[in-house]
């Protein structure tokens, strides 16, 4: 995935995360202050009934799930970023290349090999 795509995804995920977190907080109130008010008023507020109703519970559940999923998405993203980092590593020409062979020494060694193994002197 391109950097741009990753950034966009990050944006989206954080957006969902904050959204679901705020929603979760909103729906998680047990509406105490409303209970202190008039009961009749509570019935007229669809919001508060929703909060205490099953749909409110479901919302809490759904938001929790979304929160978890968002975080998992983030983790997956970090994984893919790391993979990208690892897989796109290219050895640097100058720094990583092998030290230049000492050809003289090598040929010397090879000569020595011949002498030792075969026992002949060139």
């Amino acid at each position, binding site marked *: 995935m391109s950097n741009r795509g990753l950034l966009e995804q990050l944006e989206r995920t954080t957006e969902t995360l904050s959204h679901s977190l705020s929603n*979760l907080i909103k729906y*998680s109130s*047990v509406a105490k202050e409303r*209970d202190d008010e008039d*009961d009749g008023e509570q019935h007229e507020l669809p919001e508060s009934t929703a*909060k*205490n*109703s*099953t749909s*409110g*519970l479901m919302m*809490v*559940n759904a*938001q*929790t*799930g979304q*929160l*978890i999923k968002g*975080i*998992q998405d983030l*983790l997956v993203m*970090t*994984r893919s970023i*790391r*993979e990208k980092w*690892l*897989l796109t*590593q*290219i*050895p*640097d020409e100058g720094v*990583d290349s092998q030290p230049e*062979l000492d*050809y003289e020494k*090598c*040929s010397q060694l*090879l*000569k020595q*090999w*011949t002498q*030792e*193994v*075969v*026992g*002949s002197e060139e």
Partner: protein
Amino acid sequence: MAGEGPRANGFGSDNMYKKPLAIDPNLIRPAPSSASPSADSDNEHKSEQNQPSTGMAQPLVNNPYEIFGNMPLDQLIPLILQSRGTGTKFADLTEESLMEEIIKDDVPLSQAQRDADGDLDMDVSQFANEPGQQTPEPQQIEGPARADEDAALSQEKFRQLKASTVQSLNLAVNESSLALEFVSLLLSSVRPSAANASMSPFLKKTVPQASLNAEKIPFQTPSSAEVLDRSLIAKGWKQRSLEESRTLLKDSYQALEKSLKKEHSYWSKVSHNISKKDVVFRIKDRETGEKSLGIKYGYEDSGSTYTQERGIAVLKHNSKLDRLELVPADRQQANALGKDNNEKFVRVRIFTKIEEEDDYILTGESRLDELLIPNQAAGEEFDFRRQISRLKFFIFEKDLMYQLKRESENLISYGVSIENENKITIEFSTEKLELETMPVNDDVIMNHQQDAPKTDDRKATLVLIMLRMLLVVIYKKQLRKKLLCPQTSMGASVKSPKTHKAVGKLQDNEVLLLRPIIGKFKHESYVNLLKKIIKGFVLDVVEDSSVRKVSGSSHPVTIKNEAVYDNHIAKLDKEIHLFDKILEMPRSDLLVELPKSGTILFVLQSSNYCNATTGVKYTNGEGEILFDTSFSNFKELEDFLHFIVSEYVAGGQENGVKDE
């Protein structure tokens, strides 16, 4: 009959309701009850046709037409027939005959109308109110429209269909009107005016208004206790759901943290252990099916043509030991097949011949690579690199053995034999070389470590090292070939145009591992033999003669002005050329100088590393080349030398002496 009845009624209405009833409604009751419609009913009929409108209609509280309308056809037709007397057929009834009958009955009816005016009126009003009676009219209109279908449908069938349709309609109308009546009646107690409007006159008459009532249930506001209770329940639910969500979050947090830690340590190890030179790629772990990372440890990219093993390993994180592990992809399969211990290394042993016993004793064994010796002291980081090194080592050894065996196949005439899958022996005149792949196990390593050092250990090790280096040279040649002509490198049979001159006619892709080494050994023994022959046939015979080695002039080692490639190829070339000395065909030039009688130049060389041909060039004292020939058999050479020496040199010397 629903069609028939209404038609009769409709006809009646046309005639100012003079005869509203086609059949006597009273018949409905007697018909089912009477065991058999008696013949005297015929008599009754004549009077009954008039009577119902006068007196008999009185006891009927409900609307008789409704009953007729609701009656199924199979009941109604017998009723009509019954009313008309036995012997009449329903098919005989025609409109005309009915008309005639009505006209006949006209007079008594008018009387009756006068007598029971009110009743008749009521009938008329009911008649108008009766929905069942009104619906047939549109059907009569529909009648001709369907006439076309009559041709296809039988008359009877059409009638049946029509009747059932009308019947269903009537039923629906009746039901709805009943429901309307019920609601109106129920409403009449609360809203009389509205109810009045929708009540049928019949209902108004028969049932008093507001006679049906129902209790109204008021909406109860919940008591404070109830409200409290409900909110408590709601809060309880809420609390529970929050609790669930909390545990869910906590659990997943813990799980994620765990995997995050694992991941973190995995990646930190990866970044620590894997350098940029490692070939890393994505791979699917066949065991677990997970996506994973793989490392290539095979030498395929370096020019190896070994294909028996893929040379890739899955990079795994062992969470128990918290370290990285490499699991070769092939080993997974091998384990599945039940073979294990893929780790084998090549060992070189040198046996020296005992002259008198014609037997060999072990005089040298190659050193164990330190990778094979378990190293407990090594740290964790080292451990992983060591795994990679070991994998690389083993695949290289396997490759080496594979290539050695390939090469040995053609060398059987030179004392090279493949004893078994894992062993190659090469026999020389005084010693024997044994190349063997050994499985890595503790015994082998222990034995080796305990063995006393032997005289030829170093030589064996050197041979092994040279074999490995030569394999690398083969890789490099392959690589160079790939770089130079990528399109043809795939086919190994394609001849590379860039064979190096020093290597002569040999192809780049030819395996050259054993032959250079064997050639060196053999050549050395050939040289010794040649020297012995020279000594025996020349030096010992000719006084003051000497032999010396001259360097051969025909070794074009210099890199000629080849086209300028990129650095990599130039580097490869350089590295390959380093080994030209080893890879070149062995050649020794021996110059025997004969005082006053010229020189004999012996050129000992080989066409395939293993054989030997000796070129002999005799130049006499005057610089003339008298003989220039070559032998592949030393016996012939001996004879030839003997001939030269005796004929020319010895003779020449004698001549010279004589000359002096």
